[in-house]
């Protein structure tokens, strides 16, 4: 594993059991991820695109190792090799407690800015929580860092004592990003971070994410169904279908010359903000 590779996912398989009958016995399984492999380099954005049900969200959750907590008797195999300062470690077999020291380095931003923030906590508590768990900071140090983080994502530090409902969707997503960045992660997994936002707000959040990436050298796994947004932010792209990566490569190459029939179909279907394109397609 070269030093530039932060994360090396090898042959990841995720099977969810299906329970049925009166006794809720295991009657089958759904193979949501069917043996995929990819690598994430330092400072890059890897876009993970595909339609609903293709397994892209499951991949993100497998990497931060929360599937076992979320789903009863899920079967996971393969390797998620994560490069730390002291060497390479496979995250998959780790228990929750063993995982904790590494969770500071891999953080997540979720799709829904309404349900991903606890409505009963203030911004100060929400953004400060990872600091409380992962660092030895004092209360005052934490408060300082929360203010600094809020400014970094384009919110006012004066808002620390407000509750989530006092913010708009775009502002809430910024709070989610500030929380993800609190522990100085190396990797941020963003699962549809802008798809719930209005067009004009999407652009703001995307720009903030790009600025932060440049400033802190972050690596992103950007999971989304919107092909135009993924193209804009990604260096490399993996196209997923039915639990497999059907194509992976540099973003521009995939958008200009998609090789796999599924990537071609997906791209052809994406609407263009250009009336001339329609005539080209239909004539």
């Amino acid at each position, binding site marked *: 594993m070269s030093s530039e590779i932060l994360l090396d996912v090898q042959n990841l398989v995720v099977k969810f059991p299906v329970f049925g009958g009166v006794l809720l016995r295991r009657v089958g399984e759904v193979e949501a991820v069917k043996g995929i492999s990819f690598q994430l380099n330092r400072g890059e954005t890897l876009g993970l695109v595909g339609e609903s049900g293709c397994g892209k969200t499951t991949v993100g959750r497998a990497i931060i190792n929360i599937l076992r907590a979320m789903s009863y008797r899920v079967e996971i195999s393969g390797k998620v090799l994560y490069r730390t300062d002291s060497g390479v470690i496979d995250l998959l077999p780790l228990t929750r407690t063993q995982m904790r020291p590494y969770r500071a380095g891999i953080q997540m931003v979720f799709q829904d800015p309404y349900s991903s923030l606890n409505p009963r906590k203030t911004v100060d508590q929400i953004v400060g929580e990872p600091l409380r768990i992962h660092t030895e900071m004092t209360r005052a140090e934490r408060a300082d860092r929360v203010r600094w983080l809020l400014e970094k994502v384009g919110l006012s530090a004066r808002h620390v004592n407000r509750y989530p409902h006092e913010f*708009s969707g775009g502002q809430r997503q910024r709070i989610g990003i500030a929380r993800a960045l609190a522990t100085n992660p190396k990797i941020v997994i963003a699962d549809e971070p802008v798809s719930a936002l209005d*067009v004009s707000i999407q652009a703001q959040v995307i720009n903030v994410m790009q600025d932060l990436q440049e400033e802190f050298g972050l690596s992103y796994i950007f999971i989304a169904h919107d092909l135009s947004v993924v193209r804009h932010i990604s260096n490399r792209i993996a196209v997923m279908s039915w639990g497999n990566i059907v194509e992976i490569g540099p973003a521009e190459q995939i958008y200009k010359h998609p090789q796999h029939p599924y990537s071609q179909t997906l791209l052809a279907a994406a609407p263009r903000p250009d009336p001339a394109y329609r005539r080209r397609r239909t004539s």
Partner: protein
Amino acid sequence: MNELLAIRGLRTYFHTESGVAKAVDGVDLDIAQGEVLGLVGESGSGKSVTALSILRLIPDPPGRIVAGDILFKGRDLLKLSWDDIREVRGNAISMVFQEPMTSLNPVFTIGMQVMEVIQAHEKVSRREAHRRAVDILTEVGIPDPEQRMKQYPHHFSGGQRQRVMIAIALVLNPSLLIADEPTTALDVTIQAQILDLMLEMKARRAGASILLITHNLAVVAETCDRVAVMYGGKIQEVAPIDTLFKTPFHPYTHGLLGSIPSVEGPKARRLTVIPGSVPDIHQLPVGCKFVTRCPYAFEPCPDNEPPLIEDAPGHWVRCHLYPHGGKPAI
């Protein structure tokens, strides 16, 4: 142009605990026979309320249409009796909603739901209604329609449900189809199929028009002949499709076009953004609704609402930078 629908000075207000929300506040809009008109805007712009007002589907209370005329083939829909407007719904004007999961009734078969529309509006036998239901389902591309009619909505995928919704909407050959975010909940490949289907169905019905409501400018570019941009309960710009994308007039339209990335063409390093966020609907600015986010705002903007003017043939804009001799001022 032959007007099918003319909306004049429409105001739809909602009386809520936190005050009066002027969701639609003076909308003028024409839909010509045979055209596909896009109505674009972000959440809270008033686009869906405009659509619901046309069919008088605004929940009252809290909502109420307080002013305006909606002339459909010369008849004012706002003055019709409850029975008369029911006759218009589904028959002359029909609607397809965003959520294909919730807009079909889960306890009735698909067949019953298609036939219900036919039998509600026309005195036909069950057999005849059944035959027409089979025909329309075939037309929207549901394979084996006789069998599928016996099934329930949960047997259908999201895309198929939206096909069924389109079948229900078009079975009586209405002159106007209102589609409110019809593809927003669907995957991109299914979205393309549904948009194509809507245009095909329209092409087979001479003179039928579509009002397509969406937040997605790319969807508009793919389907519409003309487009109206809404913001803060008002129409801000109306133009033929090519004109709007080539020479947008309004600063808001400019901002919207700059903030969407594309899947092809040169890639901008950064997206241009519209600063700030959509203003609270209870406290809209008195003057131009966009003034709080507009980079070009000057003296008259905060206090005076600009009129909607036609600065180039067919190209209307509501902005103090115009008239500008038919050219973009920015």
